[in-house]
């Protein structure tokens, strides 16, 4: 249950629904208690709206700009990561994957009724290469998830 003062503050702030607003307007018009409270709160509200802001020293702006000149100029975050680089890296790995698949199929023995994929890539694909490949894949996946989350947030 809100007090008379709370009701009138909500009315002054425009936070009431239409029905409550109408009821309060009627009460303010006929009830002396509501009328007196409304007049007083309107006065306080007006004083608060007329509140003056303090002024800093005359040289404030110059001091801030002097400090700012010592900083690195800011750039928009989205310009730090060039989309073309991401696309090039993704394209490179796609090319490798397609090349491996193409090589595998080219070396396959298509003997019907069954296919014999007998080929050896051990000499070319070392454990270090696989680890590097997986690491870069993880990095690309994280960048993609980051971009997706940023889009969702905006």
């Amino acid at each position: 249950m809100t007090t008379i003062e709370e009701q009138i503050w909500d009315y002054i702030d425009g936070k009431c629904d239409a029905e409550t607003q109408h009821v309060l307007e009627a009460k303010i018009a006929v009830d002396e208690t509501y009328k007196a409270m409304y007049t007083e709160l309107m006065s306080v509200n007006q004083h608060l709206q007329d509140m003056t802001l303090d002024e800093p020293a005359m040289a404030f702006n110059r001091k801030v700009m002097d400090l700012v000149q010592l900083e690195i100029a800011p750039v928009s975050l989205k310009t730090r990561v060039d989309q073309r680089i991401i696309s090039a890296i993704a394209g490179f790995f796609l090319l490798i994957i397609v090349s491996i698949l193409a090589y595998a199929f080219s070396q396959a023995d298509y003997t019907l009724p069954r296919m014999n994929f007998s080929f050896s890539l051990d000499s070319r694909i070392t454990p270090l290469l696989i680890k590097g490949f997986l690491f870069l894949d993880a990095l690309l996946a994280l960048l993609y998830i980051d971009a997706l989350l940023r889009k969702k947030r905006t």
Partner: protein
Amino acid sequence: MQEQETDLALITAVLDGHTQEYSKLVSRHQRFVFTLALRFTRNREDAEEVAQDCFVKAYRALGTFKQTSKFSTWLYTITYTSAMTSLRKKRLQTLSLDEEGPAQHLAHAVSGFNTENAEKKSAHVYLNMAIDSLSSEDAAIVTLFYKGEQSLEEIGQNLHMDPNTIKVKLHRARIKLREKLQYLLKDEVKELI
């Protein structure tokens, strides 16, 4: 909306390399940032230091401003965190209306006015004295609501509080201000009302 577009235009110009345009952003917001800092620090020198720190931090982080909220909301949040950091460092004691009597508090008011000449002061001075008697948080909420053009949700964002909490605090601050103004203005309140 025109003000918002102009702020964004200035930010875009700064990010494009025209760093001198930042001076216009500072000029536009310096009075409010300084006033908000003063609500917390209760001291002009410390408030200037906090306000300067706020604008420098905002400049550094300008590239991360996502433009999903108003620039002023973002700036005032930085002001609040800068003020809190400063207060923690200096270990200031904020004044509470419940702890001190009105007459004693007036003697320690930031404005430094002589209480013996109170009857000669304008309503604006009395209002500032009344606001100075509030807690830092309440004074900041009142300032953000009336002069910062911030909604309750935006003030909640600035001060890391729930909007309902802000509403309750704003209401209590208004009650205190009304009582304080009645005390300060005494017979003059009837003339003003």
